[in-house]
């Protein structure tokens, strides 16, 4: 098997015996449970589009290992063109889901580990890369969805891993055995964790020698013994039990469906261990993964912004204000911001380069700039959407009231815009805008792929301030050419 259908993907999740909690109860079937079903549907879109002839040039690729057709989400970038195709694919899928489809995290983890295991071996004489290649071949052949688990709970942010009062606040080594290692700790905010087949664990920060026990990278089947998932709540998630309209996007939900993964003395066989104590390579692995992941945000968020712009424009038509100059100006501004995000994603891809392993890597300065822009521009786009939509976004009656035989006619009368559009159309557009611009999506664009300060650290590191000062000194006559 090299490519699964969407339905095969859904079915493949059912045999996984995982312990998933949500609001104090177990989730047994993530493909059917109302809390997780939309996220499964969004991930399933990645499978569906890889098999659609119309999209296969973007959503699938040729494996450099086997020569077989595989999902692009399991592909190692072989050129800058591959990096550009990734960006185009992400925007394309986001335009169909209007939410996170989660699979880029594992994609980026695979690419980051491909390069870093090679570089670790080159420097230290270890054999991680071959292990990783075996694992990659398995993932590609089975078309598996991987979640990339990086963020530790961190405890006191002022302290490094080895100085935390509770050692479990960063995932760490408990025991080395002949056949593998035992690990304990947790990974937070893990997108797509409950509907992935595999978990790929990476360290969360650069480390010193004292943090050796925390410098770990490995993979696990999602149902490995000792793993426990606590699925997070989202804004308005109880609406998933109430009907369709008030969800805004009933099919695909909002953001990615995040979970805390708890590792309770979990055994990892050596063939799945890709870093174990080589603390010098923790920082490079984090940087590599983070830059790949920050590249994405200019693409998938642009796709989501396309939906927001579309919804706001349709609403402006429905409400009879599409021709107003200030509305057109605001929509133009939303387009400008969206395309600026996309431009950054394309730029950091086009300027990608080959790494020693042969895999291509994005331009890190441009990728981090792109993600930093996302933390600002998405908020501004949402502000403009709220401005155009009007206050009813926060005061709309429920779907039940719309359908109630006594209240419904009043809702229809007072929420119809009088332009030929129905109250239901206006409410549906409003709920979609609410779903994509309020609550969880805002926090996600701020902190997903790292918080703004993490990008600024890379920006300062990559900016070449010495050279910039030299240029300035030369122009103003302090230094002679």
């Amino acid at each position, binding site marked *: 098997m090299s490519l699964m259908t969407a339905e095969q993907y859904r079915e493949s999740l059912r045999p996984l015996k995982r312990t998933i909690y949500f609001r104090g109860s177990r989730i047994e079937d993530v493909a059917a449970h109302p809390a997780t079903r939309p996220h499964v549907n969004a991930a399933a879109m990645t499978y569906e589009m890889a098999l659609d*002839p*119309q*999209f*296969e*040039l*973007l*959503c699938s690729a040729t494996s450099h290992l086997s020569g077989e057709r595989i999902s692009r989400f399991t592909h190692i970038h072989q050129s800058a*063109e591959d990096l550009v195709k990734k960006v*185009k694919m992400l925007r*394309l899928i986001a335009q169909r889901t209007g939410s996170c489809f989660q699979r880029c995290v594992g994609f980026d983890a695979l690419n980051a580990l491909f390069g870093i295991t090679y570089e670790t071996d080159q420097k230290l004489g270890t054999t991680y890369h071959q292990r990783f290649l075996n694992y990659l071949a398995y993932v590609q052949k089975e078309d598996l969805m991987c979640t990339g688990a990086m963020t530790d709970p961190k405890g006191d942010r002022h302290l490094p891993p080895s100085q935390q009062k509770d050692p479990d606040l960063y995932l760490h080594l408990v025991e080395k055995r002949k056949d593998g290692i035992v690990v304990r700790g947790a990974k937070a905010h893990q997108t797509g964790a409950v509907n992935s087949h595999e978990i790929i664990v990476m360290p969360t920060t650069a480390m010193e020698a004292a943090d050796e026990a925390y410098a770990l990278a490995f993979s696990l089947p999602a149902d490995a013994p000792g793993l426990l998932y606590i699925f997070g709540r989202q804004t308005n998630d109880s609406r998933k039990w109430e009907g369709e309209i008030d969800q805004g996007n009933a099919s695909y939900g909002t953001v990615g469906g995040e979970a805390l993964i708890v590792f309770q003395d979990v055994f990892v066989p050596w063939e799945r261990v890709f870093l174990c104590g080589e603390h010098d390579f923790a920082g490079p692995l984090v940087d590599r993964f983070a830059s790949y992941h920050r590249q994405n945000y200019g693409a998938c968020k642009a796709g989501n912004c396309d939906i927001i712009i579309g919804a706001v424009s349709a609403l402006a038509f429905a409400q009879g204000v599409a021709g107003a100059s200030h509305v057109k100006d605001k929509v133009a501004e939303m387009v400008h911001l969206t395309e600026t995000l996309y431009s950054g994603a394309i730029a950091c891809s086009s300027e990608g380069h080959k790494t020693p392993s042969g895999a291509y890597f994005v331009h890190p300065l441009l990728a981090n700039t792109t993600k930093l822009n996302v933390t600002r521009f998405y908020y501004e786009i949402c502000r403009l959407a709220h401005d155009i939509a009007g206050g009813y976004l926060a005061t709309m009656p429920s779907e039940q009231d719309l359908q109630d035989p006594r209240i419904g006619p009043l809702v229809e009368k007072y929420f119809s815009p009088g332009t030929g559009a129905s109250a239901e159309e206006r409410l549906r557009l409003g709920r979609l805008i609410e779903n994509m611009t309020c609550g969880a999506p805002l926090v996600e664009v701020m902190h997903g792929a790292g918080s703004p300060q993490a990008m600024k650290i890379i920006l300062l590191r990559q900016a070449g301030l010495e050279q910039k000062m030299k240029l300035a000194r030369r122009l103003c006559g302090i230094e002679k050419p």
Partner: protein
Amino acid sequence: MRICVQYCGSCNPQLDLSQIEEGLRREAERSGLDHAFVSPGEENDLCILLNGCPVGCADLQHTGSGPVKRLLARGWKTDGQPDWTWEEGEKTP
């Protein structure tokens, strides 16, 4: 005649290129042409490259030989309206 249709990847949301293929299939049926549609990579007598914009990703991907027709949508970047151009000839270098 064995006809292959190669899509560019269809990232231009202003176009639904699959409608073009559907139209081609309907027209081939209607005309009574002895034909079969084959997958990209299979032997063919005519390869139709469907490009949604002037970047032409289907051209870049196409590696076959023989007759090629390119359907290219131009103009959408400047006036918002697709306009269709048929081009015949060998594979673009």
